[in-house]
């Protein structure tokens, strides 16, 4: 069923009683060409691009919960490609380009809003770093503008410009960055993949991966054994456990990241704005709620909920940046569990086991990567060689020293 303005008008006249479920709920077949473990954004996008780009449709996406229950529905919906490392910039820019054409491609309103992402700077050194990153982006053909204080003041008048501690000296702006309605990304990819013949198997937890003679041959699930010619893991947050079923030990720790939504208010923040003196990002949803978050809690956790010290820190950052938010009430907050890789960058690669492919380690930045992750992972699975845009995201880079380390820190799993 293709969506169009005529269909919406027709449904309106019929009291909207004619809408049908947009994907099937099939029983598992005994065997598939490809089984994708994880029905999040990345898994669904992988299935869709395998079907669309390579004509492979004998595919199952197996999901432990329901579509949209994991990190695809737990993030702060930001898309951007303002990275600074050679292995990252082309990948995230390709992702942003795919976002720009996504709604037409999958015929689904994902509310892609290129409202601009503004990174504030609060010191001379930070402005130098922003200029360097902006130049790196522009050398790769990505849009970046370095703004002075007056330009930032015109864009976001509510900021605390003259704070004695964190004065705002300007910002690095990527106008093509913005937000996307995250649930719609899951639903849109699920619908598009399903319409091409992909089976989406919800409430179908993988309990084992069978390996015979060094080759992955199938998965045990809550709905029985499913044979597969290729198995692709896209289950960030749980990657370590699922990979361990095949005997792999990953360079990942799982940490909890919290996010917050305030009560709805009139339009106040038109862009995505990030605080340079801490780790904080904020935007305003179309319903009026402010959507914001900060850093991970910083300890291993699968709990999908965090603790008060980080909540307190995030609120302090919000008030330091926007003093006018002091009377605003937080409506909801939640946590998601993140694959924190040891250099802050993801892994899209083959594994030492034939027929087993790995997509993991997205840290706190997986949402914006959803389309390119699916695109490049599907290329890897179909062609058995890495996509050029993701060629640096190798599993063996930790042993070979070719890390992709945006923050320039050591082997700690608390980068992003």
């Amino acid at each position, binding site marked *: 069923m293709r969506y169009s303005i005529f269909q919406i008008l027709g449904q309106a006249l019929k009291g909207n009683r004619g809408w049908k479920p947009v994907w099937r709920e099939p029983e598992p077949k005994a065997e598939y060409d490809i089984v994708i473990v994880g029905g999040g954004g990345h898994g669904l996008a992988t299935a869709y691009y395998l079907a669309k780009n390579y004509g492979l449709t004998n595919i199952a996406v197996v999901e432990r919960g329901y579509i949209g229950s994991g990190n695809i529905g737990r993030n702060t919906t930001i898309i951007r490609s303002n990275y600074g490392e050679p292995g990252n910039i082309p990948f995230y820019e390709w992702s942003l380009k795919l976002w720009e054409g996504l709604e037409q491609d999958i015929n689904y309103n994902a509310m892609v809003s290129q409202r601009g992402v503004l990174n504030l700077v609060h010191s001379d050194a930070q402005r130098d770093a922003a200029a360097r990153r902006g130049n790196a982006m522009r050398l790769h053909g990505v849009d970046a503008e370095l703004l002075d204080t007056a330009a930032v003041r015109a864009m976001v008048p509510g900021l605390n410009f003259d704070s004695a501690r964190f004065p705002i000296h300007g910002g690095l702006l990527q106008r093509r960055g913005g937000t996307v309605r995250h649930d719609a990304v899951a639903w849109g990819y699920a619908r598009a993949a399903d319409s091409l013949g992909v089976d989406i198997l919800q409430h179908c937890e993988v309990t084992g991966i069978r390996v015979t003679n060094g080759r992955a041959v199938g998965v045990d699930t809550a709905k029985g054994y499913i044979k597969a010619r290729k198995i692709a893991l896209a289950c960030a947050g749980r990657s370590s456990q699922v990979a361990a079923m095949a005997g792999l030990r*990953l360079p990942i*720790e799982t940490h909890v990241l919290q996010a917050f939504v305030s009560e709805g208010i009139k339009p106040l923040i038109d862009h995505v704005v990030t605080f340079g003196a801490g780790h904080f990002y904020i935007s305003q949803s179309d319903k009026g709620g402010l959507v914001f978050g900060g850093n991970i809690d910083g300890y291993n956790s699968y*709990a999908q909920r965090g*603790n008060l010290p980080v909540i307190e820190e995030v609120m302090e950052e919000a008030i330091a940046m926007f003093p006018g938010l002091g009377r605003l009430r937080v409506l909801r907050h939640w946590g998601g569990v993140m694959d924190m890789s040891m250099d802050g960058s993801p892994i899209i690669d083959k594994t030492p086991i034939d027929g087993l492919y790995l997509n993991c380690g997205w840290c706190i930045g997986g949402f914006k990567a959803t389309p390119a992750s699916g695109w490049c992972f599907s290329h890897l699975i179909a062609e058995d060689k890495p996509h050029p845009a993701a060629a640096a995201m190798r599993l063996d880079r930790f042993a070979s020293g070719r890390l992709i380390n945006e923050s320039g820190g050591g082997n700690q799993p608390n980068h992003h």
Partner: protein
Amino acid sequence: MRLPCPHCGERDSGEFAYYGDATLKRPDGLGPDEMEAFVDYAYRRDNPAGPHRELWYHAAGCRSWIVVARDTRTHEIFGAEPARSGASSAS
């Protein structure tokens, strides 16, 4: 989350800094296959969903390293002991 410091009693987790898995053992650097052992030590983790022995530093308290046993699924704390007592392979 509150951590039971063996010296200070139960304290808010905000007073502590986290250093991760306490069961890792640093290779001595002299063996023939030490490269792989160092990659394991520096990068690869068991990352269990369940009980986890982990190093915390009581930065805003007694400034000692402790080993906490904690369930990563529920944040339930089973106990804590000083790292120097031999509770950590890293000490």
